[in-house]
C-alpha cells in the first residue's frame, strides 16, 4: 500500500470515501435481505420449526435483530482498520 503514502490529501480522502461507500453498500444489502426478504415467504418458512420457533416468526423476532447488532459492530471494526490504512487520525480529547 505504498501508493497511499504518495497520494495528495484530496486523493486520499476520495479513495477512503470510495472504500467506505463500498463497505456501506455491502452491509446495507445484508441489512435489506435480512429485514425484507423473509417476510415475503413467512407462511412457507413457518412450516419449519426450530426449538418450537416457527422459522418465519423467528426471522422477524430474533434472527434479524442479532444480524443488525453484528452489522454495526462489524462496521465500527472495519472502519477503524480503514482509518489506519489511510493514515487518518481521529480526534481524541
Amino acid at each position, binding site marked *: 500500500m505504498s501508493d497511499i503514502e504518495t497520494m495528495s490529501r*484530496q486523493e*486520499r*480522502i476520495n479513495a*477512503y*470515501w470510495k472504500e*467506505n*461507500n463500498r463497505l*456501506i453498500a455491502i*452491509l*446495507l444489502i445484508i*441489512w435489506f435481505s435480512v*429485514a*425484507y426478504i423473509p*417476510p*415475503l415467504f*413467512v*407462511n412457507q418458512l*413457518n412450516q419449519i*420449526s*426450530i*426449538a*418450537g*420457533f*416457527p422459522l*418465519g*416468526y*423467528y426471522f*422477524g*423476532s*430474533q434472527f*434479524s*435483530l*442479532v444480524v*443488525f*447488532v453484528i*452489522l*454495526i*459492530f462489524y*462496521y*465500527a471494526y472495519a*472502519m*477503524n482498520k480503514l*482509518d489506519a490504512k489511510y493514515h*487518518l*487520525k*481521529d*480526534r*481524541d*480529547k
Partner: protein
Amino acid sequence: MAVNEAVKLRNNRLAQYYGMFTVGLIVFSLIMGALELGAGMPKAWIGWTFLMLTMGMYAFIGIMSRTKILDEYYVAGRNVPAVFNGMATGADWMSAASFISMAGTLYALGYDGLAYIMGWTGGYVLLALLFAPYIRKFGQYTIPDFVGARYGGRWPRLVAAICAIIVSLTYVTAQVVGVGIIMSRFIGVPYEWGVVIGLSGVLVCSFLGGMKAVTWTQVAQYIILIIAYMIPVTFLSLKLTGFPFPQLSYGQALQNITVLEKELKISSEAPARDGTGRIIQQGYVPAYNEGLSNAAAVTAINQINSYFGLNITPPKAQSIPDASKPADEIQTDWRGTPWNFLALTFCLMVGTAGLPHILIRFYTVPSVRESRLSVGWALFFIFLLYFTAPAYAAFARWEILQNVVGKEIKSLPEWTVNWSRLGLITQRDYTTLDGREIDKLPAWAAPQVRSGALVITDANGNGKIDLAGATFSETEVDGKKVGVFGELSGTAVTKTSTDGILQFGELNIDPDTIVLSTPEIAGLPYTVAALIAAGGLAAALSTADGLLVVISSAIAHDFYYRIINPKASMNTRIWLGKTMLVVAAVIAALLALPRLALIAQMVAWAFSMAASSFFPVVLLGIFWKRCNGPGAIAGMVGGLSVTLFYMYNNYLDPSFNVLGITHLAAGIFGMPINFLLCYIVSKLTAAPSQEIQDLVDHLRSPELDDELMTSIASGKQAAGAR
C-alpha cells in the same frame, strides 16, 4: 499517553460507580421483598419507597452534574465514552411505550407486531452506517445546526428547527401521559398529580445540568429499566417451562399457542380464502391478518369533541373487511399480502434514523471512532429489551389461552380479577353485568344500549340489572333474532354471550396489562411490580429528558442565538436554554392533561414524518455534494405534503389506500418524492459553494481539521445567503 491514562482512569471510575449502583439496586429490591414477605410491609409503602428512592437518585445525579459550561450543557462536554453513550441512547430511545405497551401490541397482533421489533432496531443500522460518524465529525450542538451549515442560510435552519420542535413536543407529551398513568396505577395518586410529580423529576435533572446531567441519569435509568424488564419474565419462563431464559424458551409457548388456537377454533385448521382467492391464516403465528379500519379516528374525534365541547362530525365507522357483512359480500382487502408490514417496517427504520433526540446523542462522544462503536452499544442495549418483548407476549398469550379463555368467569385466575377491576381487562359476557346499576354500565355495554342492540327492562324497579337464575331464550321480531336473558334483551344478546364462559372474542386486554400483570401471573411478590413501575417510570422520564433538551436547544440555540442575536453571551444562552426547558415542560404537561388517545397515534406518525422530511435531506447532505438548499427545501416540503395527504385520507377513510398500506406507514410514499424533488431541483439550480463542498469533504474523513471547521461553523451563515 498521559491523556489516555486519564481517560482510562475516568472510564474505570464510571464503571465502578454504575456497578455499585446496580448492586445497590438489586440489594435494595431484595430487602424490600424480604420486608414485604417477612414483615408484611403494605403495598403503598413499597411503591412510594421505590418511587422516592429512584427519583432521589436522579435528582442526586442531576445536582452532581450541574453546569454553566456551554459544551457541557448542550453536548455533555463531548466526553461520554461509547458504552455509556450507548446506554444513555438506549434509555433515551426506549420510552414508556416500548417498556409497557410493546409486549401488549405483540400479544394482540402476533407476527404482524414484529414490524415494530424489526423497525425500531433495524433503524440503528442506518444510523450507524449513514449518519452517526458524520454527525459527530460535524460536532456542533443541534440537528438544525447541521441542516443550516450544509444547506446554507437561515431558512433551512428555521424549517429544521420547527420540525424538531413539533416532533419532540408530541413525543414528550406521550411520555408525560405515560408518567401520569404509571404513577396513578402504582402509587394511587390522581393522574394529574402523577403528571406534576413526574415532570418535576425530569426538570431536576435537565434544568441544572442540561445534556450532561441528562446523559448520566439516563445511564442509571437504563440500568433500572432493563433489570425491571428482565426479572418478571425470567421467573415466568422458569415457572411455565422450567428454563430461566425466556428469550430461548418461548418457542414452547408459540407451539402451545398454535395448538390451543386450533382447539379453541381461533385459527382455522385449513387456511381460509378471502374474496380474491388469497390465503388468510388467522392466529398468532401466521402473518398478515391485520385489516384496515378507521376506528381510531372515530374514537379520537369523539374524545376531542367531548373534552373541548366541540361538534366535529366523526367519519362513518368502517373496517375492511367488514365482519358484519355476509361472507360473500366482504370487500376485497389486502390481508394476506405483506405490503403493509414491509412498508411499516421500512418507515419505522428510516424514521428512527431521523429523530433529533437520538441524533444529538452522537455529538456527545469524544471522537468519530467512538461514535461508530457507540451506535453498536446503543443497539445492543436496546436489543436486550426488544429481544425479550416477544417472550412476554407469547407467555401471556399462552397463559390466557390456557387458563382464561373458555373458562367460567367465576373461576378465572386471580390476576385477571384484579386487572379487570382496574378496567384493563374487559370481559364482554352479560353475566358480568349481574347486580350492576343501570346508569353505571361498563364502557363496552353502554354503546350497545345507545344503538339499541341491548335493551334493559328493569322489571323490579331497583335500578340494578338482576340476572340471578335467568335462562337464555330466543324470539324473532321483524325477521331478526332477538335474545332474552333475565332483564336483558336485544339482538346483541346471544347464547354464547350469556353462558358465563369467557370466549376469546369476549376478552379485551389493554396493551399495558401484559407487562404489568406478569409478576402476578408468575406469582411474584408486589415488590417486583413496584420495580416494574420504577422501570416504566425510568423509561418515560429518560425519553422526556432527552426530548426537552432538543426542544429547548432548538429555541435557545437555533432561533435565538443563531438567527436573532448571534452576539448573545454564553450566560444568556444557558439561561435562555434553561428557561425554555421549563416552558417546554409546562406546555407538555398542559397537552398531556386531557389524556387524548390521539397523542400515542401522533408518536407513530412522527416516524413517517421524519422518514419523509429529515432523512433524505440529511442523507443527501452527506453523500451527494451537489445537493443544495433549494433542492433540500423542495424535497422536505414535497415529501412531507405527500405523506400528510395519504395519512389524513387513510386515517379517516380506510377505503382510501394503496396496496392496503395504513396511515402509520404513509412515509413510504413521501420519502421517494422527497428524494426525487431534491434531485431534480438541485440539478436545476446552482451547485453549492466551494466552501460547502469542502465542508462535505471534511465530514467524510475523520482526520482532524479544526481550522476549516471553525471557519465554516462560526456564524458563516452569510455564505449561505446565496
